[in-house]
């Protein structure tokens, strides 16, 4: 009882509420600006938390993190520019929806599924942290290697249209991801002596270039089409649609939770895994990539499911899973707190106060998101001849701000041209992105496993986690092959069962 009092005392302060609300607002705003990611927002807000109370300080940063995760989807949907990497997947269906005049529906879908996923993720953090942390600790390089192999199989389901083109795109992505210094020997790989390339190709200019720039180039290359004013707000998400997508949202959230609990995978991968899983199961498979509500829902659930869960290894083990949690760890330390098992013994009330705040942040996200949608959906009404020059300006500023380098503007434009050519030749960009994200993880974990085991290959089958991932990797390949033959069979006999041979 005494404890409860203490928790409430720590939590029920005006500062905390202001911190959460402010954090979410900052997160949504900054997250929606291309180039300025949630990571950057958290890093930039850090100095302001030095003088705050510890609970308020952490909640501010967590609020920014969560807001940023959602905010990225706004511009992804409206102008095909992922505000942060994790929302690249949202754009696959979100932007087509906006093009068809359903901008508001897409935004609402993204918001609701973000909030639900966020909530599920928080529940996981509060009640299952101990179990999930154990999984995280048992996740060594070989386990990771198979997880990545499994994730690579999603390329098969993302390669809409032509499988050959999808795989070519993925291979190009992997190849470009390998540019930079070799992670084991430090030797140069395809850097051509350029120092800007030695830390590998920066992700954000690539992302903006690949998606936003081609849209702009195309607009100025195409014949003028008069601007048709779509009905501004459009309809929101209907209850039926929410019900239909709910399974995907929950599944996506759980995928996000597991990926988030394992340090080092990241929200982008979670979004894509959730998306491809939803697509595999959906009856409307053909509509994915062309403006499917469920696609937006699954992608957003995947990336927001990660947010709460990344705090699991941080709080229970003191292990930051990504850059954002590393900064939050820094904030804990500035306030004289060291996350990890000891904090659960010494500062339990503080942890519970944090949990309350984190739960509360989901609610705030819903409110702030709703307000944001109201104004942001107006963007869909601006004629493109006015909108695109301003989008381009944001893209350039954002690309520059990542590393403070003009080189990144060049990079962004180069990828813009690549993306344009991709569109022209029908090569899908999503597998390229997956290849780029997973390529280095694949290679690093393969080599890491070999280093740990001294070259003994049996390390790859060393325990139940590896067996599980091997099984689902091969299962998903087998399933894809099976489906391929079935579809072909169906095509060959268009009359179906009526003409048995």
């Amino acid at each position, binding site marked *: 009882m005494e404890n409860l009092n203490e928790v409430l005392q720590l939590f029920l302060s005006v500062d905390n509420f202001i911190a959460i609300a402010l954090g979410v607002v900052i997160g949504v705003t900054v997250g929606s600006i291309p180039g300025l990611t949630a*990571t*950057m927002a*958290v*890093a*930039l807000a*850090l*100095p302001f938390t*030095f003088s705050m109370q510890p609970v308020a300080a952490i909640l501010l940063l967590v609020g920014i993190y969560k807001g940023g995760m959602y905010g990225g989807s706004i511009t992804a949907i409206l102008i095909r520019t992922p505000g942060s990497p994790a929302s690249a997947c949202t754009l696959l269906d979100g932007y087509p929806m906006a093009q068809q005049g359903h901008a508001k529906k897409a935004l609402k879908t993204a918001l609701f599924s973000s909030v639900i996923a966020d909530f599920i993720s928080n529940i996981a953090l509060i009640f299952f942290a101990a179990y999930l942390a154990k999984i*995280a*600790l*048992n*996740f*060594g*390089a070989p386990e990771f290697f198979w997880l990545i192999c499994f994730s690579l199989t999603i390329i098969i389901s993302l390669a809409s249209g032509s499988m050959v083109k999808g795989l070519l795109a993925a291979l190009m992505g992997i190849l470009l991801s390998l540019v930079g*210094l*070799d*992670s*084991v*020997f*430090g*030797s*140069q790989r395809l850097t051509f*002596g350029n*120092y*800007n390339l*030695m*830390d590998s190709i920066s992700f954000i200019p690539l992302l903006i270039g690949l998606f936003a720039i081609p849209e702009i180039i195309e607009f100025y290359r195409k014949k003028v089409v008069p601007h048709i004013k779509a009905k501004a707000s459009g309809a929101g998400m209907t209850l039926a649609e929410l019900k239909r997508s709910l399974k995907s949202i929950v599944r996506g959230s759980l995928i996000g939770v597991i990926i988030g609990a394992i*340090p*080092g995978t990241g929200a982008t991968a979670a979004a894509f895994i959730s998306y491809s899983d939803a697509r595999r199961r959906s009856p409307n498979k053909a509509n994915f990539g062309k403006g499917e509500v469920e696609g937006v829902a699954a992608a957003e659930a995947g990336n927001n499911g990660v947010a709460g869960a990344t705090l699991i*290894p941080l709080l229970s*083990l*003191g*292990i*930051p*899973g*990504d*850059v*954002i*949690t*590393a*900064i939050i760890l*820094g904030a804990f*330390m*500035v306030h*004289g707190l*060291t*996350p*990890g*098992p*000891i*904090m659960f013994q010494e500062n339990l009330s503080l942890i519970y106060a944090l949990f309350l705040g984190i739960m509360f942040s989901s609610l705030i996200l819903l409110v702030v998101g709703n307000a944001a949608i109201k104004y942001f959906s107006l963007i869909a009404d601006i004629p493109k001849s006015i909108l695109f020059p301003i989008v381009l300006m944001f893209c350039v500023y954002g690309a520059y701000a990542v*590393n*403070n*380098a003009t080189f990144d503007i060049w990079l962004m434009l180069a990828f813009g041209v690549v993306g344009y050519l991709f569109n022209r030749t029908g090569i899908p960009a999503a597998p390229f992105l997956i290849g780029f994200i997973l390529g280095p993880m694949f290679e*690093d974990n393969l080599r*890491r496993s070999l*280093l*740990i085991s*001294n070259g003994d290959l049996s390390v790859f089958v060393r325990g139940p986690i590896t067996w599980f991932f091997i099984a689902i990797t091969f299962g998903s390949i087998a399933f894809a092959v099976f489906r391929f033959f079935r579809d072909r069979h169906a095509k060959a006999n268009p009359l179906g069962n009526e003409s048995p041979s």
Partner: protein
Amino acid sequence: MKKLISATCIAACGSALLVSASITTANAADWPTKDVRLVVPYAPGGTTDVLSRRVADLLKDALDTNVIVENRPGAGSTVGTGRLARGGRDADHTLLMASPGHTIGAAIYPDLAYDPVEDFVFIQNVIDIPNVMVVPASSPYNSVVEFIEAAQDQNMAFSHSGVGSSIHMSGELFKTLTGSDMTAVPFAGSGAALPALLGGDVDVSFENMPTVYSHIKSGDLRALAVTSAERSPYLPDVPTLSEIGEYNLDQFVTTAWFGLIAHNSFPEEGFEAMQNALDEVMEREEFLNFAEQLGAQPGQVEGEEFKQFVIEDLARWQAVAEQAGISQ
């Protein structure tokens, strides 16, 4: 069109005014005469970044001017450092937070366009974070000597946070000095390396103190030694590597040091103003608390001594990089 041009001019003048307005006025000293930039040659969120933002925040009061942190990451720290070395219009108000990346980077990156010593003035070493030699709690080794003896005929894996990190180089240095058989296992940052260490996938690591301190306290990791010259007040029972006295380990004294440097055209009055400001900052309670949280100690050397320290550090890492075959 005319309207447009005049509007452009107005906007340009307006922003120029804004810029000049932010230049601090009314300062008795000749330096600083405008905003001070603190370049962090790493991405936002890393140790160097967090530390720099803390210091910048305190410097703001001490210098009575705005201190803007600017991240210029890339190729270890060499992209940001290289830009500073080129000088330019703000070089007289630009500082850079140098770290072991400054010397290690110079040792492992080919054909740097700058000289890591001669192109800079060395203002002050701000903070020193010791590295700790840690083994998992389940490890059979209870002392450094036991470990080295086992490592003579058995391959040991050590984790590190990336090629050229102080953690990696410390491991390589240990390997060369003691003649142990060790394999470097790279991870993407200390956070990713920790589970492998806690789970026993790797045998040892030379991690930064703040990363492993709480795990040492909770008993999940065992500290065998610290790499600094003297024992750390945070781990008083843990010997230093140089104390061991065997296997050439008396030469093993390294820390993850952080210090402010500037372009060598940095004005003399700026140098003095910075030293005074830093003396003030380093006595502030906030700074000392922060250092304590990192398990770190305020830096000891400044000016010429600091430069000497960097020269020695550079020579050591060049030797290690050559021996380990890291420099390509």
